[in-house]
């Protein structure tokens, strides 16, 4: 059987069952859209067009631009690995802030002038942070 549309069986031998004229009559018949139906359909079209237009010109583009800006910032900042370090640092900061100095083993921070006056040598033996060394190096 041909895949081509065979409207009434005409031309393909299917018309010998006598149905061709019935199908032809049916194609020409059938209800026509009433004026009321057409009006309802076009009213729906107008409503949906307005709704879609509001979504297009309102919040949707602005939200999309904001999301994209955040994604770009996230990528530049380093993504999830950086977040892990930041969270750790933040939690440590909170803990330091709420803990008594004694709990941290930092007696000098509580106002021990002698201890507070001693510089902390971050790289012992190297003098890397010595002011004298910097002045000579110029």
């Amino acid at each position, binding site marked *: 059987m041909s895949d081509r549309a065979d409207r009434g069986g005409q031309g393909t031998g299917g018309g010998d069952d006598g149905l061709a004229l019935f199908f032809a*009559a049916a*194609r020409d018949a059938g209800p026509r859209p009433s004026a009321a139906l057409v009006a309802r359909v076009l009213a729906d079209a107008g409503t949906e*067009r307005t709704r*879609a237009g509001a979504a297009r010109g309102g919040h949707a583009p602005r939200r999309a631009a904001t999301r994209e800006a955040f994604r770009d910032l996230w990528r530049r900042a380093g993504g999830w690995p950086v977040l892990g370090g930041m969270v750790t640092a933040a939690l440590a900061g909170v803990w330091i802030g709420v803990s008594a100095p004694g709990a941290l083993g930092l007696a000098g921070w509580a106002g021990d002038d002698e201890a507070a006056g001693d510089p902390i040598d971050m790289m012992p033996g190297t003098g890397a942070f010595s002011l004298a060394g910097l002045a000579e190096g110029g």
Partner: protein
Amino acid sequence: MEMAFDASQGRSDAEILAAYAGGDPEAARILAARHLPPVLRLAARLLGDPAEAEDVAQEAMLRLWRAAPGWRDGGAKVSTWLYRVTVNLCTDRLRRRRFVALEAVGEPEDGRISPEAMLQDEARVRALDQALAALPERQRLAVVLRHVEGMANPEIAEVMEIGVGAVESLTARGRRALARALVGRRDALGYER
């Protein structure tokens, strides 16, 4: 009310639908002129109820308006998509009610249609509708899409979401059943070879 003249005959349905989505108010008129009549005709033939057919036709077009912004050209044809939506809407309604086709269409008073009382084409249509109503739902749908709406089998397969072979089987069985039902009425209906 006459449907608006389609002044965009050179444009595809997808192009006009894109224009509608872009805010063109005339595009909706063009699409309605093209597609509302066949959608309504199909729904009427499947449901046998003019009021329900109008509801289905309006709903099908509403779904098209809502699909317009996301419509991708190159996918399903608008007509095929609309037919599928219409068929699904009709199927839902038929499942919710018992399909009393003969009552909806109307039995002839004495079982014989008089050609003197009706125009020949009207009589043939009534006879065909009565015979269609007696078919199983999917046979009726396949026969209507094939022989009344003039769709090709692959397109019918897409609408009904079945294989092409299944379409051929349904249309063949449906057509044989119609022939048996209508053969005795051909003379009375003025059928001539």
